[in-house]
């Protein structure tokens, strides 16, 4: 059967063995990236923080998935499966955010959430001002 030939072939591709040093190298890159992501916020620039924190998280996740989980030598559809599932999470986000992230929309207003934001900002603002004065 042709499917069986494909299976054997697939197996051979999965069973690729890297030397331990390869994994240590990946770990080294991960550690450096991690250091940057911790250092980023210390600059105190919001945009840099977001970029270093989440950009690097994505790169790190990619490295772990590709080289530690071996998704790079896995069957293609496995990657598509995981990405497809992730796409459903994004779909959920975009379907829900207009109602939950926004506190106001056409003919409606989330008064309670706005009040919670104001209350929180005021309380913490006062606290922060106090903190700054010290």
């Amino acid at each position, binding site marked *: 059967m042709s499917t069986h030939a494909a299976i054997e072939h697939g197996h051979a591709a999965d069973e690729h063995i890297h030397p331990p040093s390869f994994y240590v190298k990946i770990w080294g890159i991960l550690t450096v990236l991690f250091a940057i992501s911790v250092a980023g916020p210390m600059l105190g620039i919001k945009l840099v923080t977001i970029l270093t924190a989440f950009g690097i998280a994505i790169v790190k996740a990619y490295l772990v998935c590709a080289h530690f989980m071996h998704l790079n030598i896995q069957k293609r559809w496995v990657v598509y499966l995981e990405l497809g599932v992730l796409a459903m999470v994004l779909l959920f986000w975009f379907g829900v955010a207009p109602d939950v992230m926004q506190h106001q929309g*056409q003919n*409606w207003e989330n008064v*309670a959430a706005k009040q919670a934001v104001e209350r929180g900002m005021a309380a913490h603002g006062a606290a922060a001002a106090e903190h700054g004065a010290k």
Partner: protein
Amino acid sequence: MISHAVDQVSTFAKDIDVLILLICGLVGFWFFVAEGVLFFLVFKYRAKEGGKAAYIDGTDPKHTRFISWPHRLILLCDVVIVVAAVRVWVEVKQTMPTPDQTVRVVSQQWSWSFQHPGPDNKLDTADDIKTLDELHVVAGQTVQFELVSQDVIHSFSVPVFRLKQDAIPGRVIKGWFKTTQTGSYDIQCAEICGIGHGAMVGTIVIEQPERYAEWVAGHAPVAALATPAPK
């Protein structure tokens, strides 16, 4: 069909009924065609002594056209329904005509309370009329309502208006209706809200301007006392 049993009392009630009739016609057609074909085929191709079934895999265009053509027609029907439904939706939920009057509808377990603007026709002033379970509006006027909830989710449903909107605690949701005749009708809670849900009923009283003015005059100063203050 619906107006037979439930009056059309708002301006958009008719539009919703027409939409329902349109959908009824379109899907009814397909329903009866499909059922008809189904029963016809079951009858025509019932097992016969020594008969042999045809060997059809359903890839030949000669056969598939019996499916693909109805399919395109259904798509067309879908487009018609979407256009009609969205038009009605936009009219009822997305537009906001300039109101003659604004009222506040407050839902709580398990009653409705209403805040009428009073003689000055402005909400949140001293002469507001607060009532329990009874909403008074003027026939022919456009009324805007602000829907709020004190505790759990309720739903402001007035079948004669064909109007329904959930009240979400923490949110103010606005809507409108324009009445077309006088009468008094049910306001029902359409979202389960606890053990009293089955008894959460209010009345909407639609009156001629004179009667309404009388009611306002009779209730304005002292009405505040009649309110149970559900804080």
